[in-house]
């Protein structure tokens, strides 16, 4: 299943993006749904705070995994930081995505202005069954 949706560059879109992805995923176990929700929130927040352009959320859901990509036209260069110190006030978003995902990455604006950040999380449980 592939679904795309575009969101306005508005803080309220962060929650709308979380709901969009969670509604499409359905039942996948609370722990995994929590992780997905947090990661979508972090990527959408990056787009709203730093790019200030409309952003697209693209989902690819299979029995194996969920891949979510958030793209904006801000032409920014998000950077993963090493583990932030406990007391730093910012810079935790992509660190959290790194910790909660199985795989993630940044597709920088090469020539164009679209920058994408994506993550993938397994949809199988330890027994190899979709929960």
């Amino acid at each position, binding site marked *: 299943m592939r679904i795309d949706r575009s969101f306005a560059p508005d*803080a*309220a879109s*962060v*929650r709308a993006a*979380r709901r969009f992805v969670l509604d499409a995923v359905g039942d996948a176990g*609370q*722990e995994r749904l*929590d*992780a997905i*929700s*947090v990661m979508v*929130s*972090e990527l959408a*927040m990056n787009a*709203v*705070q730093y790019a200030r352009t409309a952003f697209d959320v693209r989902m690819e859901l299979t029995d194996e995994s969920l891949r979510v990509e958030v793209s904006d036209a801000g032409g920014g260069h998000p950077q993963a930081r090493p*583990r*932030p*110190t*406990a*007391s*730093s*006030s*910012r810079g*935790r*978003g992509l*660190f*959290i995505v790194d*910790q*909660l995902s199985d795989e993630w990455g940044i597709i920088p604006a090469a020539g164009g202005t679209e920058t994408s950040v994506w993550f993938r999380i397994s949809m199988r449980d330890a027994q190899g069954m979709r929960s």
Partner: protein
Amino acid sequence: MAEREPTDEAYCAVEVATEDGTPVIRLSGELDMVSIERIRPVVEEVLAAGNDRLAFDVRGLEFMDSSGVALLVSATRKARQVELRHPTPIVRRLIELTGLTELLLMVP
């Protein structure tokens, strides 16, 4: 299931109580970059009243992202002791993976 679209103001509720002399900020719902705008002034007001101890009761907090982590960090800078009471699994996971266990006391 019926669509619920609570207003921005309604999706994180905050309540301040005092238990044994410690101010307790109870949060429930979803804490993100929008809802935090209403919560931050409440926390600042409690800290401005000269409290050096502060507790957050987050048993009803269903969602939190790095905005909430940043709020907790800023509270630990201003108060001598910050307790996080009854964290839900996602809140506990975020606190642990961002290293905030060094800065605040988690009470199960």
